C-alpha cells in the first residue's frame, strides 16, 4: 500500500506541475562526460552531448541575425592543457509562428559539441578538472527567456607516455588536484 501511495504521489506531483501550459522552464542539460585519458603531447577528442527540453529551441552557434545570441561554449582550462578545435553542429533552419517568413538557425532536441584536449609536454601526469559553461538563450513558440549559462565540467587524466617531455613544475596547471 505504501508503494502505491508513493507512486500516486509522484504521478500527481508531475501532473500538477505539468498541467501548467508552457510552464516548464526552458532548459538545456548536459549528459555525464566520461573522464578523458590522454597522453601528454597528444590530443584526445571530447564530445559534449546537450539536450534542449521539448518545446524550446536555442540559437545555433551561427544564428541568422546579429542581434540573436549564439550558443557558445567557454572553457577555462589549466594553462598547459590546450582545448582546441571546438566544433559546433550545424543548426536547423526552422520557422516559428512569431517569424514565419524568417527561418532561424537553431538547435532543438539533442546536439553535440566536440573539442580536442591536448596537454602540453610540460604537464605533470595526473588528473585535472576542466571547467566552463555553455551560454544559450532559449525561446518557445511565443516567448523568449533571458540568456543562461550551463556549467560544463569534465576530468582529464594525463599520462606520461613514452616520449620524454621537459618537466617543469613551475608551469603546473592551476586546476591540478
Amino acid at each position, binding site marked *: *500500500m505504501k508503494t*502505491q*501511495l508513493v507512486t*500516486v*504521489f509522484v504521478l*500527481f*506531483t508531475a*501532473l*500538477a*506541475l*505539468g*498541467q*501548467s*501550459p*508552457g*510552464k516548464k522552464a526552458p532548459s538545456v542539460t548536459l549528459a555525464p562526460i566520461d573522464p578523458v585519458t590522454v597522453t601528454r603531447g597528444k590530443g584526445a577528442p571530447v564530445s559534449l552531448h546537450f539536450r534542449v527540453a521539448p518545446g524550446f529551441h536555442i540559437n545555433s552557434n551561427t544564428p541568422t541575425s546579429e*542581434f*540573436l*545570441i549564439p550558443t557558445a561554449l567557454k572553457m577555462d582550462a589549466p594553462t598547459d592543457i590546450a582545448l582546441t578545435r571546438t566544433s559546433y553542429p550545424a543548426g536547423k533552419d526552422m520557422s*516559428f*509562428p*512569431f*517569424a514565419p517568413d524568417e527561418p*532561424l538557425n537553431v538547435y532543438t532536441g539533442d546536439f553535440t559539441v566536440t573539442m580536442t584536449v591536448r596537454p602540453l609536454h610540460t604537464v605533470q601526469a595526473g588528473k585535472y578538472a576542466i571547467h566552463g559553461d555553455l551560454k544559450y*538563450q532559449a*525561446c*518557445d*513558440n*511565443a*516567448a*523568449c*527567456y*533571458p*540568456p543562461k549559462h550551463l556549467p560544463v565540467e569534465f576530468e582529464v587524466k594525463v599520462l606520461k607516455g613514452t616520449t620524454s617531455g621537459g618537466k617543469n613544475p613551475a608551469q603546473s596547471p592551476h586546476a591540478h588536484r
Partner: protein
Amino acid sequence: MKRNPAALFFVAAVVAAMLFVGFHAARRSGDGSSDSLDVAGKPAPDFTLQSLDGKNVQLSSYKGQAVLLNFWATWCGPCKIEMPWFVELQKEYGPQGLQIVGVAMDDASKEDITKFVKEMGVNYTILLGKEAVGQEYGGVNVLPTTFFIDRDGKIVAREFGLQSRSLFVDNIKKALSQGQAVQARK
C-alpha cells in the same frame, strides 16, 4: 483487491493539493499567456530609466495618460512581431492619451539597441532597462512581457509572451477608460 477507505481519502487529498498547487503555480509564472488578475488594480512600480537620447524618464511622469509598458530585447523574436503593432497603436491611440514605453532588457550596447529600434521604425519611447526595474515588475523572466497601466498609474492587465493584436487593443481601451485624464503630452 481490498480498498482501504482512509488510504483512498489520503490519495484524493494529495491529488487535490497537487492540482491546487499546480494551478496556482501556473497562474504565477510567465508562459505566453495572460494572468492579469494577479496584478490588476495594483499601482505600477515607479522607476526612472534612461532613454536612447540620454534623458531620464520617470514612469510616474505619464500620470494622466494610459501607458503600455513593454519589456523586450533585441534577441527576442516574438518581441519583433509586436513592435510594428505598437507603432500603429501609438499612432492610433496616442491622441487619446496612450503612451507606449518599451524597456529594453538587453545586454546589448546602447548603439546596438538604437540601431535595432531604427530598423524597426519605432515611434514610441524606448528606455534602457535595468535588472532592478524588472524585479519590481515580478522578475520579467519571459519576454515579451507587457503591462497596461491606466491614467492613475494602476495596472489594468499584464500579458506574457506574444499575444494577439486584438487583445492589446482591448487592454489599451481598458487602460484609457480608467483613471483621470490629463491633457496628453506631445
